[in-house]
């Protein structure tokens, strides 16, 4: 269970007029400055990285405008569009690896990074592994659902995902039938997708399983098989009805615990660990007001006082794919999608293959000495000329040639504009000087590698 109950370590918020305190819009001046640091924080949490043009744009838009812009995204440009031409060729190999690589290729060129981030978020939330599903098309369909509906109303998303063939096979829906229930789908629906642990009982799971009988896959599509359905009355979480799966879902979405569950997840992901309990209540309220619309809730959250509080800056540990994406997008570069996928897998986040239904671990569990080794591997190989990542444009073109110390400064400013601790900067500059005689591509690759292993590079 990833959504831990937050502890109110921040002290009680001052009571102001109106029911909302934490999620009140961030006012520059009163709540702090909407400066470069604030924008960097916003970009890192909502997008992946901070391309320089984006920073200025966000500054101009102000906190609410920036949040809206991130949720809305920009129109895909020609590069992103020409990628779509390749889609039938890449997906036609029916290989999970190619499917994952294609996602990485799109990640590098996306003009709507929040949407890609939400795809990852939902992929973790609705964790489904290709190893059991064994059908690349179904996994593609699931990903497209995440992308298409991920920033819309949660009920639409959840229904579409849960009735998708990938999820049905993953949770053995077809073998759930009247008289011989299989509780898998029912349990995960309640525990992982909608309500969360502690908000239902074992009996609710059994009843939910009964409601979900009859859901099956025929010819690769969802079908409701009435013969297998248990038509009786079910009681789930305090209410009764002759529900089928759809009606059950409608009932679950209406529960307060559903909104709270989602709110907790969003807070954990976007704000960081140790969010205040009252914030969840507020966010849940926002969600319910808007029919559990994720995008609108995010607009509120990303522009809120809570989000911009200084104690949350740098409070999260980046996951592997997030970390890769941050580097590439902040540099404005692309890399070999297959190599990125392989590397992310070694770091512990293999796309399309979460370890089990609970998805990937979050936060501090991403890091161990072994996974640090893999991150070091990535960092040191990323810019290497002739290395597996084929960085494009290569570092020697990205970084202007003005001498080793200037190069060092350039890279630091690109990735960590807020600056490094002074000691770290000294170490890096010393290294740049010491390696001045090396060929430029090699020197730059080493510098980038070292910079990526600075502790600050792993937090956002």
């Amino acid at each position, binding site marked *: *269970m990833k959504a831990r109950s937050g502890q109110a370590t921040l002290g009680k918020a001052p009571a102001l007029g109106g029911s909302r305190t934490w999620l009140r819009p961030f006012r520059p001046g009163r709540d702090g400055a909407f400066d470069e640091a604030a924008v960097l924080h916003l970009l890192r949490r909502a997008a992946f990285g901070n391309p320089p043009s984006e920073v200025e744009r966000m500054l101009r838009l102000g906190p609410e405008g920036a949040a809206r812009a991130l949720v809305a995204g920009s129109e895909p440009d020609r590069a992103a569009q020409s990628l779509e031409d390749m889609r039938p060729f890449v997906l036609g190999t029916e290989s999970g690896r190619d499917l994952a690589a294609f996602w990485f290729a799109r990640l590098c060129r996306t003009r709507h990074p929040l949407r890609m981030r939400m795809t990852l978020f939902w992929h973790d939330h609705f964790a489904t592994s290709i190893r059991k599903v064994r059908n690349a098309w179904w996994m593609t369909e699931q990903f497209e659902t995440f992308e298409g509906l991920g920033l819309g109303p949660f009920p639409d998303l959840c229904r579409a995902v849960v009735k998708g063939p990938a999820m049905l096979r*993953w949770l053995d829906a077809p073998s759930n039938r009247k008289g011989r229930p299989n509780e898998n789908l029912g349990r995960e629906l309640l525990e992982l997708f909608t309500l969360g642990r502690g908000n239902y009982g074992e009996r609710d799971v059994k009843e939910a399983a009964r409601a979900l009988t009859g859901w099956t896959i025929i010819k690769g599509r969802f079908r409701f098989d009435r013969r297998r359905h248990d038509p009786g009355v079910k009681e789930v979480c305090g209410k009764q009805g002759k529900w089928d799966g759809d009606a059950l879902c409608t009932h679950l979405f209406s529960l307060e615990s559903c909104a709270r569950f989602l709110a907790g997840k969003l807070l954990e992901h976007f704000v960081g660990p140790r969010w205040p309990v009252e914030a969840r209540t507020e966010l849940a309220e926002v969600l319910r007001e808007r029919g559990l619309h994720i995008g609108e809730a995010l607009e509120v959250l990303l522009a809120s006082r809570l989000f911009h509080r200084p104690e949350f800056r740098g409070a999260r540990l980046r996951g592997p794919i997030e970390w890769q994406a941050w580097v590439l997008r902040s540099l404005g570069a692309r890399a070999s999608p297959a190599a990125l996928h392989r590397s992310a897998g*070694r770091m512990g986040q293999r796309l399309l293959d979460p*370890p089990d*239904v609970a998805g990937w671990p979050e936060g501090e569990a991403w890091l161990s000495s072994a996974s*640090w080794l*893999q991150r070091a591997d990535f960092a040191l190989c990323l810019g290497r000329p002739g290395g597996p990542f084929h960085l494009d444009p290569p570092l020697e073109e990205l970084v202007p040639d003005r001498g080793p110390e200037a190069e060092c400064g350039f890279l630091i400013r690109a990735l960590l504009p807020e600056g490094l601790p002074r000691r770290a900067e000294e170490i890096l500059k010393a*290294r740049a000087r010491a390696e001045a005689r090396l060929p430029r591509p090699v020197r730059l690759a080493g510098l980038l590698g070292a910079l990526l*292993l600075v502790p600050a590079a792993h937090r956002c």
Partner: protein
Amino acid sequence: MSSSSTRKSSPRISRRGLLGRGGALLAGMPLLRFGSGSLEGERLFVLVELVGGNDGLNMIVPFEDPAYHAARPRLRVRGGGLALGEGFCLHPRMEALLPLWKEGEMAVLHGVGYPRPDRSHFRSRDVWHSGRPDLETPSQGWLGRAAAAMPKDGSMVRAMGLGEVDLSLVLRSPRLAVPALPDLESYMLHTDGRARRRRDARLRELAALQETARDDAIGRLLARCAREALEGSERLREAAASWRPKAGFPTHAFGRRCALASRALTSSLVTRIVHLRHHGFDTHASQNRTHGTLLGDLATGLSALAADLRARGLWKRCLVLCFSEFGRRLAENRSGGTDHGKAGPVLALGGSLKGGFHGRATSLTALDDGDPSFTTDFRRVFAEVCERWLSVPSRPVFRGSFPPLNFLPRS
């Protein structure tokens, strides 16, 4: 049918493990201490998998049984050259293992299989690896779960799959991530400095950078993981570089894997459990041509490993187990080979076990659809390994109790 998605009773709170497929990931367990000493008194375990379905009848040959000779006019092993006693002999190419048998350091466990057997490679392998014939698509292995339940020790990695890039199911566990390494080099930090001085400078620099971490929980975690990673990688590099074989390992593919196993087990503090695979046992045709070579390679490789570990004084603490996903049919087929069967013998080698035959030999007359049926449930063997060798309770791993065969000493 419950799904592969795991229903753990007290599961996902401590997210300490990462499960990764291929490549090297490690447990979230922080490394404890380095340097001093080895794993004193800790037991080592090598699991060898004969991939494809080994023909046990031609490995441990019931040469005094007329039914055997009648059913295999062309494939039978004649004569009792390497006699083991009780009417059995070894395949003639396995002479390298005979000394171990004579010393009482080799045990043959008869007729090991599982109920309602499946002749599909994949299904049988899943069963043997997971220890759970009741699961349709298991996602964890018995050895992985046992390793996860072992108490912390000084090893860098509790278990390793060696010689392949893919991690086998037998080592998978959500609470302990196990690396699958084609070789030990893939587990070291590769800076681009090949020259020693430059490497050291790089490492010092990286270590110095870690000191600049912010002083909060995440910062401390980052610094600690980085430090441990850098130290551990260097130790492994030194240990691996200074390893010298203490016995002559054969040069064939399996021999190389045995050498790799020795490196992993003996280069200080690396690992305690190793999984190796020996491929090629699916002999549907012309078995005479290939099976002998495979068994010969197995015997020479394992005897070299035993000699090597013995020379290091580790043999008493080591157990090697060879299994296969099924045996083969009694009768030979028309292509000069044998088809998939059901049960087969399991070989155990080690300095501390009770040698000799264990279990009941399978009958060659009372066949189960043409196959010798199993007399020992495989879970008895593995559960005994868990309880008596690895000191891990076997009940949660196998969801049941299985009486031991007593080939291992009582802990």
